[in-house]
């Protein structure tokens, strides 16, 4: 078929982008009986939830690497277990100190408490208070994840009802609880932790979750909230736990695709969409880069609003106000990643051999000042000279990732700028960045370098080029209050609908934001079905409610 020939296939709905949210939307629509087509630019599906063999014999979860936030309601509704998804919890974590000690985050609560007490007795007591208060915030937000945010300026019955629901949830917190919640959403992670902990090490240990993926420092107001994006999940009902998808994060995408196909949905890879077609205010389909047109009255975009509204739509059909909103939407790249193939298991002398936390997430920043300085480097357009690493060795838990006796190490790095002091990344920059990370690992694992067989270095640039995440922002848009809930991605567009009839957003740039949660995808599908007059079929609200 030549490029000029129009295939004129017709679908009920097209989903642009086979990321986990796009697949989730598609699966729910297909399950509701729609004829659905997912179009993916890459030759493989999954977006940032992929398993890729980039070194022979080694499977890398080369973007997202751990799983916790995936909503259990979605997991159950799409029967992802049947489609092969198995989440294996991993054990705790460690913060190494520069003097050769560590603070262990054990899974067992009593052991963890004793471990904190080893460093600071007061903080061991404070940890219980901290856990209780933080879990209270998790419970509050969890009830809002699988719901469409109300428009606070609207007088529509549905919005008023949702506002009332929100008001009721608030009132249920009790007066002090409401005050605590407002403060929680406006405090920095540093100030939040300072209300509990005395020890700088203990504070540092809990800080990482406030800044992962975020172009903010531990002292920036608003980072306490980001904590929730690492606490509000669960594995097998264990709140706050994290696990691996067996076989890498691609297993999540594979299971979602399996569910989609079991409902009759289709996926086409190597099919980059060039434009969304419209007639007047109505969406009519898409045209691929090849020139092929595919028709549908509904198009869901898994891309961020900048790419969707400014890149795929006929610019003449856009209000200038919307163009400004899309431009002002903050998507800042601040993270990088190293995927490393290892000849053997690296040792960390501070832990000794066979330590149960060896297979947990390992961290190297032991003071708040080191965290903040890492951010200051990013502000200056450099990667952090002393970065925050979230290091894991998934092959210790999931032996399917590597040949026997070998290992795979996943190193998430914060902060890494999308451009180096205003210019594009060069190979020399990439090498120097890799060495910065290696040097930090070597401080706790002497001889680590000798084990390295292959290392994939991913700066925000690679993430953007490969996955289509603007600036390489892992949440598809900063998780600051001005871009959350009814402000996500921006006011007036928080209910998944775009500026054209039949156009929807379903990516992490919509409520409730990033992490491999799949909630934006499910919520968007529910809105599509609502517009078709069949609102049932997508889980709504909170099953543990």
């Amino acid at each position: 078929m030549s490029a000029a020939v129009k295939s004129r296939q017709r679908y009920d709905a097209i989903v642009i982008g086979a990321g986990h949210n796009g697949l989730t939307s598609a699966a729910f629509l297909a399950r509701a009986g729609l004829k659905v087509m997912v179009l993916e630019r890459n030759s493989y599906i999954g977006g940032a939830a992929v398993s890729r063999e980039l070194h022979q014999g080694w499977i890398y979860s080369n973007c997202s690497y751990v799983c916790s936030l995936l909503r259990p309601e979605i997991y159950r509704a799409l029967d992802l277990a049947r489609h092969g998804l198995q989440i294996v919890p991993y054990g705790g974590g460690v913060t190494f100190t520069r003097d050769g000690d560590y603070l262990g985050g054990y899974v067992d609560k009593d052991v963890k408490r004793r471990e904190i007490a080893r460093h600071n007795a007061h903080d061991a007591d404070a940890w219980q208070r901290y856990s209780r208060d933080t879990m209270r915030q998790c419970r509050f937000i969890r009830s809002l994840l699988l719901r469409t945010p109300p428009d606070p300026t609207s007088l529509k019955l549905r919005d008023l009802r949702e506002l009332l629901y929100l008001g009721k949830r608030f009132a249920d917190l009790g007066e002090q609880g409401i005050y605590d919640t407002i403060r929680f959403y406006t405090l920095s992670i540093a100030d939040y932790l300072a209300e509990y902990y005395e020890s700088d090490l203990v504070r540092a240990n809990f800080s990482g979750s406030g800044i992962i993926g975020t172009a903010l420092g531990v002292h920036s107001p608003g980072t306490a909230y980001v904590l929730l994006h690492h606490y509000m999940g669960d594995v097998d009902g264990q709140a706050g736990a994290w696990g691996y998808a067996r076989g890498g994060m691609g297993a999540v995408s594979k299971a979602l695709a399996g569910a989609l196909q079991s409902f009759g949905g289709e996926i086409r890879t190597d099919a980059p969409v060039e434009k969304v077609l419209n007639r007047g205010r109505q969406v009519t389909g898409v045209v691929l880069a090849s020139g092929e047109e595919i028709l549908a009255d509904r198009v869901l975009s898994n891309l961020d609003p900048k790419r969707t509204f400014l890149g795929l739509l006929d610019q003449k059909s856009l209000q200038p106000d919307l163009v400004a909103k899309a431009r002002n939407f903050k998507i800042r790249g601040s993270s990088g990643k190293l995927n490393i193939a290892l000849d053997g298991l690296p040792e960390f002398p501070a832990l000794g051999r066979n330590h149960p936390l060896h297979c947990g997430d390992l961290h190297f920043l032991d003071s708040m000042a080191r965290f903040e300085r890492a951010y200051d480097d990013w502000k200056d357009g450099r990667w952090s000279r002393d970065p925050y690493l979230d290091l894991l060795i998934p092959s210790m838990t999931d032996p399917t990732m590597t040949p026997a006796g070998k290992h795979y190490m996943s190193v998430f790095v914060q902060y890494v700028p999308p451009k180096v002091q205003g210019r594009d990344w060069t190979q020399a920059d990439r090498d120097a960045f890799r060495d910065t990370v290696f040097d930090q690992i070597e401080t706790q694992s002497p001889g680590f370098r000798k084990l390295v067989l292959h290392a994939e270095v991913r700066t925000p640039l690679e993430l953007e080029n490969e996955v289509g995440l603007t600036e390489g922002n892992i949440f598809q848009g900063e998780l600051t209050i001005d871009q959350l809930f009814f402000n996500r991605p921006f006011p007036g567009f928080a209910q998944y609908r775009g500026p054209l009839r039949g156009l929807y957003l379903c990516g992490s740039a919509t409520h409730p934001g990033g992490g491999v949660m799949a909630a934006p995808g499910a919520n968007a599908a529910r809105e599509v079905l609502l517009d078709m007059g069949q609102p049932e079929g997508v889980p709504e609200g909170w099953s543990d409610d």
Partner: protein
Amino acid sequence: MTERAPIIVVGGGHNGLVCAAYLARAGRRVLVLEAAARAGGCAATHEFHTGFKVSSIAHLLYGLDAQVAGDLNLTQHGLVLAQQNLRSVALHPAAEALVFEGDSVSGAGLAAADRDAFRRFIAARRRFAAVLASWHAAPPPRLALHGWRDALPVGKLGWSVRRLGRKEMRELLRVATMSVDDWLNEYFTNARVKGALALDAVLGARAGPRSGGTVFTSLHRAAGGGSYAVPQGGMGALSAALAHAATAAGAEIRCQAKVAGFEVVAGRVSGMRLASGETLACSAVVSALDPQQTLLGLLGARHLEAEFARRVQHVRATGTAAKLHLALSRAPEFHGLKTQDLGQRLLIAPDADYVERAFNPAKYGEYSPQPVMEVHLPSVHDASMAPAGQHVLSAIVQYAPHNLAAGWPAARSRFLETCLETLSRHWPGLRASILHAELLTPADIAGRVGITGGHWHHGELALDQYLMLRPVPGAAQYATPVGGLYLCSAGTHPGGGVLGTSGRLAAAQLLAREAAP
């Protein structure tokens, strides 16, 4: 017949004096106890070098509660403004200064688009600041949402946002928590305009322009009306007028009477001990000292429920603003500044990144190697401040954190040197013209006026310490959990700046709750 014990106002700062004046006007017997030799607190004038006087801490009047000024007839009690509606002028060591007046900005290198953007920006800031101003006029509501009656005052707050109209309401809900840097970038490309506006947002704050919540601090400052004035005789003249108004209404002011602690009987404040050993009985207490000092120092945590005490302990109050005073033998000649602008509000904040970089060290307990400044020369408008032909320069300098890691005794002279170096870049002849220099660090301010952390606002002005969260839930409506004890300092709603609103609202709460004898 014995007269009932007086209401004691602890601290004769502007809020204490305002509160005393209102209570006295309502016919209550009021005694103000001030530790220093003269009332005034942060609104004071002192002679720092023979013949040279300066407003010691606050140096410009920008949000004085109009109702206070009217109710207390401050003009009649001697308040004269030497100059009003100061322009803001952004200095640059290598370019002509930018002059901001109302909603217009002028100066070399400005494009029509910058001027237009400035007009739109000021219009938006005014619109949103007006919402805050409406909140500042009344005590903040509690959020005990048990029923419609509790929800009503909260609904009123919401309504003030709703009536902006759909578009503006959405915009306010979006920008309210943002960093001022992000907000400015949506309007401006001109770095110098952004620098000046960024400084406005972070003056007095432990925050940089990239910190979330600095749009809020910008709006809070603008809520005062956004115009700057200088009292004749310095800020001490305002305190003198307030003291005069209070005494004229029947209040008694005792200076050099430092309070050492409160006496509590059956959950109610019954009196107090002075540092001199004297004890005084009282019917109620209003403290104009900061909340931490009042509740944890004078009252003592043992009288408070543990959770409440913990909240008070965690009020964020680390001052980052220092004050520089220079006695000058001649009029300064700042680069690019027109002579007629010498007496205006001069800003050293060439761009927003400069401001952010100045803030960076404060996070690590270090001072800025290149600080930002708000400079004012009161002697241009007021001949009483300096000998003829000579001048006084007063500058707020940031960032100089109270908790300096190296300790202020060791770092003081180096930081003074840093300040002079920064000023010299704009006026190379500075050093030859200095007759005397005085630097007040937050530690000095803490010592001199007795504010915890040397923080002007008696607690950081931020979203987590605003409205019903200021200073802490449970004391945000001026009454504390201890009977008869009230707060009226800038640490309460609506917060700092020389506003006097806290004093006024606290007096009203006390009058409503404490029956007259």
